[in-house]
């Protein structure tokens, strides 16, 4: 049996006779006592998200998941297609399991896919992804006094992001996939 130290994004946990993929986890030390691993995980069938708190070091029934770096290819109906960069093997993953992360996918980026018994169950995006700005309204003059004025632009994969008003169409920007926020010019 593995322990909380083996919990990572995309790991699959056997909990109460069901399988869940870890969406997010966080170590918490309430006060100065014991440490806990607060784990948000998604039911592999229904997609329902639950939160379980493990004591750090506690045994956790983590099932064996193979993590592969794969390249995102295209969307096919409700599914998303990825290719293993070394074997060129292709797989399709259900959009429900990708959830909100789907909006960051862009043809050609590398992601880490967790595969359980031949089926892709989880995805980890790079922390920052570069996009090209394809639609940007012009900056409105006299609007920059607050220093934090933004406008919405559209990226080359259709993602909408709030950016500073000085960003122009055709520029490349970095977006932080953990916060969903503009990071800097690429």
């Amino acid at each position, binding site marked *: 049996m593995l322990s909380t130290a083996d919990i990572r994004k995309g790991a699959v946990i056997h*909990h*109460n006779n069901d399988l869940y993929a870890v969406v*997010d*986890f*966080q*170590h*918490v*030390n*309430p*006060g*100065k*006592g*014991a*440490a*806990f691993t*607060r784990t948000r995980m998604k039911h592999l069938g229904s997609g329902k998200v*639950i*939160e*379980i*708190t*493990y*004591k*750090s*070091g*506690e*045994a956790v029934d983590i099932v064996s998941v193979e993590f592969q770096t794969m390249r995102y290819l295209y969307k096919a109906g409700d599914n998303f297609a990825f290719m293993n960069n070394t074997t060129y093997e292709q797989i399709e993953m259900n959009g429900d399991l990708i959830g909100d992360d789907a909006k960051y996918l862009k043809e050609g980026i590398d992601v880490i896919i967790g595969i359980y018994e031949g089926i892709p169950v989880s995805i980890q995006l790079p*922390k920052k992804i570069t996009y090209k700005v394809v639609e940007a309204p012009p900056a409105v003059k006299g609007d920059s006094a607050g*220093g*934090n*004025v*933004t406008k919405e632009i559209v990226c080359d994969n259709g993602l909408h992001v709030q950016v*500073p008003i000085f960003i122009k169409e055709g520029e490349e920007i970095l977006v932080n996939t*953990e*916060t*969903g*926020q*503009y*990071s*800097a*010019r690429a």
Partner: protein
Amino acid sequence: MSSWKELKENPRLKKIHDDRIIILKSIREFFWSEGFVEAETPLALRFPGQEPYLSPVPVRLTDAGKNIYYFHLRTSPEFALKKLLGAGYKKIFEIGKCFRNNEDIHGTHSPEFTMIEWYRCPGSLEDIMTDTEKLFKKILKKLGKDSVEYNGKEIPARGKWKRVSMKKLFQKYLKADLDEYLEIEPLKKLAEKFGQTTSAADEYEDVFFKIFLNEIEPKLGIDKPIFVYDYPARMCSLSKLSVSDSRYAERFELYIGGLEVANAFGELLDPVEQERRLEADQALRQKLGRETWAVDQEFISVLASLKEKNAAGIALGLDRMVVLCTGAKDINEVIFSNISDQLAI
């Protein structure tokens, strides 16, 4: 946060950084105006704390004669500040970096973070609650705000903040009388009722937090900041027992928007009892296979000199405070060139 390039090209992150500077300045102004003095205590410690579940970062120091000395970076300035109380200081504060090993580096967590601690001797937990509330309100005023923000939600900070006992929270959110759950077996049954796992190795505190972290904490401080006080006595290794009910200990935590911001104790000043507890923690470290070191005898000796006094103190996470006061998305957005940025992970 942020690389220099992000600060240069991202007005939102630059504003957060500018606000952090204002916050730091306001904190110092607040404490000086309240009669506190600023302490500066060592980062590198020969005898760090004994908290069984914290891992200090080891550092190796070599002198000119090539002798090697082993130290650890502090996880908190607590022992050193209490030694200054023993030296006769009555109101002290420190703002400084602390480090924790073996924790996540990505996302919402940073192994290098800034702690504000302050102590009053004499002092009570009520005094510390009042300090905390006044400090936040002063900072918000400087920033031209009267509310904080977390996870995109605004939390009003005006008016008197709530002060609620843990027992009342159990009643409200779990419909349970905490007095009946002061032993581990009934508490385990309660945890299982709420879908949590328990094991034979769980201590009382473990089971308590499995329930608390899931069923209560996320709901705390949503409409107004809240101080939660009176924790079950068996969970508080550095605090003294409540005078009115010895089943509970003098400890409080501040929650804002479901986030734990600060943790305070009515300080345990009994050297014999403190040494016993530290030795028990040290034994537990050994049992857990963690690195161990001697109990800091200077810390025990300072308690002997403070024994007849009342002291209270608090540790408040500055980075979390900055997140709340600036509306930043996570901890890493408020720490310039943080470890995650440096490693590019």
